[in-house]
């Protein structure tokens, strides 16, 4: 049950709830005639009221979200620099797909898609344990959730210290006889490092969503499975996963969106896209082209590709999970 609270209690402060209701019923009969004239006079104003109430929201969203979206697509077909504002057809897209950095960014998106099941399974499994009342589950919930509220900048800065070549992680590995790894300096390793830190920082978010899903799960089914002597993996497979299909779907989509749109802070602080451009993601590419290279039109093309990518990934996931749900 989201957003708990007791709405009636907050209503009309100062009045006891029961008394307040009675008083209202009295005014209902007594006050109607007295206010009639004013209500009629204000009819037009009354009809306009809903529009007035939504107007600021509409203005803000149209001006700063919808118009930029359309403008961006438009931009992507115009030129940069000397050709500013001129129509250049698909030139930006051609340049984009010939740019090895953008190629790396797209390959890294592929890697994220491959790692997605892991990023969903970890919080799912932990939520299951917490739901099954592992001793200290309340404490674990609070601890696991905490990094999720920290800024990627803070998380990145902390892990810069931890993952330094002569930092604590390599020292710990050294104690058990493993050679130090250049976590952020090795092009073959750095992307996995950043994704790992991202998962560390955000799995608490998915965990909380899973726990909310569990609270809607029919616990008699679990008890029945238990009485029948089903093992934990079988309970997860036959009871929990089918029962939580909507939650799982939601976590898949939001985790993917998170990976595609909220790793900028980590990349900016931890790797700046390096080493050798190996940790580029589309969002970082957009930032570099816009903020550093002064290529807004090219950045817009990358934005449009990112938007389409998210649309496709989101729809594909929903489609796949729907089908899996039906087969069950």
């Amino acid at each position, binding site marked *: 049950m989201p957003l708990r609270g007791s709405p009636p209690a907050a209503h009309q402060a100062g009045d006891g709830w029961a008394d307040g209701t009675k008083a209202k019923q009295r005014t209902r009969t007594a006050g109607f005639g007295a206010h009639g004239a004013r209500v009629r006079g204000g009819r037009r104003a009354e009809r306009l009221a809903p529009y007035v*109430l939504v107007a600021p929201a509409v203005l803000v969203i149209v001006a700063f979200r919808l118009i930029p*979206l359309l403008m961006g697509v438009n931009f992507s077909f115009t030129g940069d620099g000397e050709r500013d504002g001129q129509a250049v057809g698909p030139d930006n897209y051609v340049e984009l797909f010939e740019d090895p950095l953008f190629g790396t960014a797209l390959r890294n998106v592929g890697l994220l898609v491959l790692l997605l099941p892991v990023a969903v399974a970890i919080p799912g499994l932990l939520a299951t344990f917490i739901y099954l009342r592992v001793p200290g589950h309340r404490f674990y919930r609070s601890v696991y959730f905490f990094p999720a509220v920290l800024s990627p900048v803070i998380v990145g800065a902390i892990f*810069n210290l931890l993952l330094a070549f002569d930092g604590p992680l390599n020292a710990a590995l050294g104690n058990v006889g493993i050679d130090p790894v250049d976590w952020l300096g090795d092009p073959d390793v750095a992307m996995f490092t950043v994704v790992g830190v991202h998962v560390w920082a955000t799995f608490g978010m998915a965990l909380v969503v899973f726990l909310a899903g569990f609270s809607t799960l029919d616990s008699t089914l679990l008890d029945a499975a238990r009485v029948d002597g089903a093992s934990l993996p079988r309970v997860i497979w036959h009871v929990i996963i089918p029962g939580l299909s909507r939650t799982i779907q939601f976590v898949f989509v939001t985790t993917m969106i998170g990976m595609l749109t909220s790793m900028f802070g980590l990349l900016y602080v931890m790797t700046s896209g390096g080493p050798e451009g190996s940790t580029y993601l589309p969002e970082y590419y957009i930032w570099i082209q816009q903020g550093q290279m002064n290529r807004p039109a090219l950045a817009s093309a990358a934005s449009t590709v990112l938007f389409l990518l998210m649309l496709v990934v989101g729809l594909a996931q929903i489609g796949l999970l729907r089908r899996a749900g039906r087969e069950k």
Partner: protein
Amino acid sequence: MTRRPRRSAWLLAVPMAALALATIYPLVFTGNVAMKTRHDYILDRFSPTASLHWDNFITAWTSIGLGRYFVNSVIVVASAVALLLLIGSMAGFALSHLRFRGSRALFLCFLAALFIPFQVIMVPLARIMADGGLMDTYPGLILAYVAQFLPFTIFLMTSYYTGIPGEIIDAARIDGNTPYGVYWRVMLPIGRPALLSVGILNALFCWNDVLISLLMMPSAEHRTLMVGVTSLRGQYSDDIPTFASGVLIAALPVLVIYLFFQRQIADGITAGATKG
């Protein structure tokens, strides 16, 4: 509730505890480093600090200008959250309880706006803001935050208000309230739990943001705290304890809010999942 055989539950508790330790350790390590002198850090960065060296925090706060950035962040976040709550609850009230033409289409529009990532609109947005003279100003950044988090705010406020029975609004109307009066005197007080939850979440989102702030506030004196932290690294690469102190200063408000409002944060996040 379900009950598992005790022994296997304790068995699961071992990896859970190990993971909890792995979650806490990075913060503890950073706190320990922040308390060391530069000399101690270079000699041994792992052992518990011999003395509490608070000077690092003072250095980070004053000489780097984190204090300035901190104030910038507070101004921007407080204004953005106040505006978000006001605009979001007004729209939420209208969409949930007032009948008007196009209300359903409008709600779907807002919902669709929820799925436009900032990265997709940031280039044209920068141009719109520059054309409007809002680039590198507080109102510009505040507006950018409001636009970014308004769809989410409207979505949660609408779904919360939908759960409020219409009789309460009818009663207030019969008492002679205009729709605005109903909004101000009834819906705002009733909405307190949701406003608190959404407000805290929005405050966290804005406080933690770095991309929007980087885009909107290019000049150094307008930097928000998170952007300020990213610039620490370069300046203090040879003074890690001061760097660590700066990072902790930036994280402290979030830690405090988390300790007090953990439930509201979780509620806000899960509301999207269970209603969506």
